[in-house]
C-alpha cells in the first residue's frame, strides 16, 4: 500500500509539516485538502522563490499578484483587470470541455473583481498539424473556446497558435481575459468581519473535477482513462447569468468579499479568503446545494464544479444577494460564517469533519528548491551559427509563408465572436488587438506572445525576447505598453535541467519587464507539461497590455497606399 501522503501527491516531509501545523495527524478530509492546495498548481511551491524576481509595482499598478486578477489604473477612475491562465491537462483529455472551462475560469477571475469582461485572447500550442490527434485536439479546443466565449458575449481580440512536435502529447491552452472596473468599486477575495456570512452562489455542486488541481500538477499518463472523471462540463449560459448577477451587486456595500471557485473548489476559496483577512470560517456543508446524492464532506470540499462563486456578506445584505441571484434564476445559499480563530471548520450532518488553520494551508507549504543543472543540449550547442549554404530563395519564401506557424490563423479566429460589445477597433490578425473605452478617446491594446524556440535555445535571453516581442507588437500598433500577465508553461520542475531552464527564463523575463517598466501584475504557472516521450519546449506566454490616449492614432501593418515609403527602424 502507498503511504498516505502519496495518495494525495505529497512527500513525507510535506506530510510531517502538516502534522506540525495541526499538532496531530490530519484526517482524510484534511489531508485531501492539503493535497490539492499544496499541489504545484495551487501552491507554486517550485515557483514562489523564482516569481519574486518579477517587478510587481509601478505607478499604474492598483492590484498586483495575489488576487484573482491584476489591475492597472487607466485614468478617468477606470481600472483594467486582466489575467491569463492555463487549462492544459483538461484540454488534452477532453479538448472541447477542457478549453471551454478554461475560458470560464479566467472570465470568473475578472468579474469576481467587479470588472466587466470586455475582451479575451487565447494562446494555443499543438503538436504536428498533420497528425490525426492534433486535428482532433484543435477542432475540440477551438470549438470549446468559441462555444464558451461567444455565448458569454466577450469579444476575442487576439491570440496565437503554434505547432511543434514537443506539444504532441501535451497541448497548451492558455486563455486571457480583460475587464473594466471603476476604481472605487473593486471587489476583493477577502473575508473580513467576524460574524459576516459566507454564501455559495451559482451552479450546484457535483462530483465532477474532484482533485483537478493535483491532476494539473502531474505528468500526463499514457492511459488518460484513469484521469477522466476530472474533466468538467462547462455551462456558459449559467456563467453569463452569474456574471450579470455579480455585476449588479457591485454597488452593494454589504458585499464584503468575492472569490470565484476554481481549482480546488470550496477548499481554496474558503482558505484563501480567510487567510487574506486573518480570519477563519465555520462552514456547514449541509447547506451546499448539491447535484448528486450522498456526497461526503471530502467530495463537497474538493469538487471543482464550474460556475460557482463564494461571497462574504454582512448579515443585513443576505437578502439583497439572494434577490439579485434569484432575478437571474440562480441559487444562493448561506453556507457559513466568518470567525476570528483563523481556522476553517467544516461541519457535515451535525458532525465536525475537519479543522484547518487557513494560513497553514495557503502559506505553509515547504518551498521546494530542486537541483539546478545547465542542460546538456545547451552545453553542446554550437557556438557559431552554421552556414545555410546554397538555397533557393523562392522555395524558402513559399516554405515560410505556407508554414502553419506563419500562415494566417483566420481559420481559428473566424470561429470567435470578435465584435460583440461594439468596442473592437483592431480585431485578430494584426500585431495586437485593440478595443476602445466607450465614453473616452482611449483605447487598450493587448497581445499574447511566445515563440518557444528562443527560451529553448537560450533561456535567459529567450525569456527577455518573449517580453520584447510583446512590447514590439504593442508599440508597432501605437500603444504604450503598461503591464504584463504571464503563463509559465514548463515541463516537470523536479528535473534539474528543466529547473535550470525554468529559473533562467524567469530571470530573463524579469529583467526585461524591469527595464521596460511593464510590471507583472498577475499570472499563472503550469508545470509538468510532458507526456511519456515528449516534453514541451519552455513556453512562457506573455500577455501584455497598453494604453493609447487617442484611439484614432493607432496603426495596422497593412500597406496603405501606393508611393508610401518603407523604413527599417532599429538595429
Amino acid at each position, binding site marked *: 500500500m502507498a503511504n498516505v501522503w502519496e495518495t494525495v501527491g505529497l512527500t513525507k516531509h510535506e506530510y510531517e509539516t502538516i502534522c506540525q501545523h495541526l499538532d496531530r495527524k490530519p484526517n482524510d478530509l484534511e489531508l485531501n485538502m492539503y493535497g490539492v492546495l499544496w499541489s504545484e498548481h495551487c501552491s507554486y511551491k517550485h515557483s514562489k522563490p523564482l516569481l519574486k524576481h518579477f517587478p510587481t509595482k509601478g505607478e499604474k499598478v492598483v492590484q498586483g499578484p495575489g488576487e484573482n486578477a491584476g489591475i492597472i489604473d487607466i485614468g478617468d477612475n477606470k481600472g483594467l483587470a486582466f489575467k491569463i491562465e492555463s487549462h492544459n491537462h483538461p484540454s488534452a483529455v*477532453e479538448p472541447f*470541455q477542457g478549453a471551454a472551462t478554461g475560458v470560464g475560469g479566467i472570465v470568473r477571475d475578472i468579474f469576481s473583481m467587479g470588472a466587466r469582461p470586455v475582451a479575451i485572447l487565447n494562446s494555443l500550442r499543438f503538436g504536428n498539424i498533420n497528425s490525426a490527434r492534433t486535428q482532433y485536439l484543435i477542432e475540440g479546443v477551438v470549438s470549446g473556446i468559441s462555444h464558451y466565449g461567444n455565448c458569454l458575449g466577450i469579444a476575442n481580440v487576439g491570440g496565437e497558435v503554434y505547432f511543434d512536435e514537443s506539444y504532441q502529447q501535451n497541448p497548451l491552452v492558455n486563455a486571457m481575459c480583460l475587464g473594466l472596473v471603476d476604481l472605487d468599486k473593486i471587489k476583493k477575495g477577502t473575508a473580513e468581519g467576524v460574524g459576516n456570512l459566507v454564501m455559495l452562489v451559482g*451552479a450546484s455542486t457535483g462530483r*465532477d473535477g474532484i482533485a483537478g488541481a493535483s491532476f494539473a500538477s502531474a505528468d500526463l499518463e499514457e492511459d488518460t482513462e484513469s484521469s477522466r472523471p476530472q*474533466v468538467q462540463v462547462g455551462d456558459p449560459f*449559467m456563467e453569463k447569468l452569474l456574471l450579470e448577477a455579480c455585476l449588479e451587486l457591485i454597488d452593494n456595500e454589504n458585499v464584503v468579499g468575492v472569490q470565484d471557485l476554481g481549482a480546488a473548489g470550496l477548499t481554496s476559496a474558503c482558505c484563501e479568503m480567510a487567510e487574506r483577512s486573518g480570519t477563519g470560517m465555520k462552514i456547514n456543508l449541509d447547506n451546499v446545494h448539491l*447535484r448528486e446524492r450522498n456526497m461526503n464532506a471530502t467530495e463537497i470540499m474538493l469538487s471543482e464544479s464550474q460556475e460557482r462563486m463564494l461571497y462574504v456578506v454582512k448579515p443585513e445584505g443576505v437578502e439583497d444577494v439572494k434577490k439579485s441571484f434569484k432575478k437571474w434564476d440562480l441559487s444562493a445559499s448561506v453556507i457559513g460564517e466568518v470567525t476570528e480563530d483563523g481556522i476553517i471548520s467544516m461541519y457535515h450532518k451535525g458532525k465536525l469533519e475537519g479543522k484547518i488553520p487557513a494560513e497553514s494551508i495557503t502559506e505553509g507549504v515547504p518551498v521546494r528548491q530542486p537541483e539546478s543543472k545547465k542542460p546538456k543540449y545547451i552545453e553542446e550547442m554550437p557556438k557559431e551559427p552554421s552556414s545555410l549554404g546554397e538555397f533557393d530563395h523562392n522555395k524558402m519564401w513559399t516554405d515560410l509563408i505556407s508554414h502553419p506557424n506563419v500562415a494566417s490563423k483566420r481559420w481559428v479566429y473566424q470561429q470567435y465572436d470578435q465584435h460583440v460589445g461594439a468596442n473592437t477597433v483592431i480585431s485578430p490578425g494584426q500585431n495586437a488587438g485593440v478595443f476602445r473605452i466607450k465614453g473616452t478617446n482611449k483605447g487598450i491594446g493587448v497581445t499574447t506572445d511566445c515563440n518557444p524556440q528562443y527560451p529553448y535555445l537560450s533561456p535567459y535571453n529567450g525569456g527577455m525576447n518573449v517580453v520584447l516581442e510583446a512590447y514590439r507588437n504593442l508599440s508597432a500598433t501605437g500603444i504604450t505598453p503598461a503591464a504584463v500577465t504571464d503563463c509559465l508553461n514548463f515541463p516537470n520542475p523536479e528535473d534539474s535541467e528543466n529547473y535550470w531552464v525554468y529559473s533562467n527564463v524567469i530571470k530573463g523575463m524579469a529583467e526585461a519587464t524591469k527595464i521596460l517598466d511593464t510590471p507583472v501584475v498577475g499570472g499563472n504557472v503550469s508545470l509538468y507539461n510532458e507526456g511519456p516521450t515528449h516534453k514541451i519546449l519552455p513556453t512562457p506566454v506573455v500577455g501584455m497590455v497598453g494604453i493609447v490616449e487617442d484611439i484614432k492614432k493607432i496603426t495596422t501593418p497593412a500597406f496603405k497606399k501606393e508611393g508610401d515609403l518603407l523604413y527599417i527602424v532599429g538595429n
Partner: protein
Amino acid sequence: MYTGKVTVQYRKGILDPQAQAVHSAVKSLGYNSVKDVEQRKEFCLKLDCENKEQAKNQLEEICQKLLANPAIEDYQFTVEEE
C-alpha cells in the same frame, strides 16, 4: 447492408446543462408532472460490411474514436442486418 444505432449520453454525475435547460423550460410551461429530463444523441449509420461481426467491430471503433468521448460520455449500440 447493416444498420447501426448508437446512443451517446453523458456519464452519470456529469452536469448536462442542455437537459437542465429543457427541464426548466418544461416546468415553466406548467408541466409540473415532469420530474426529470435526460437528453441523448442518437446516430444511425448504414454500414456496407461483409458480416455482422465486422460491422460491430467497425462501429465499436467509430464510437470510441469519434462519436463518444469516454472522458464524459457513455455509448451503447446495436447492429441489425437490413
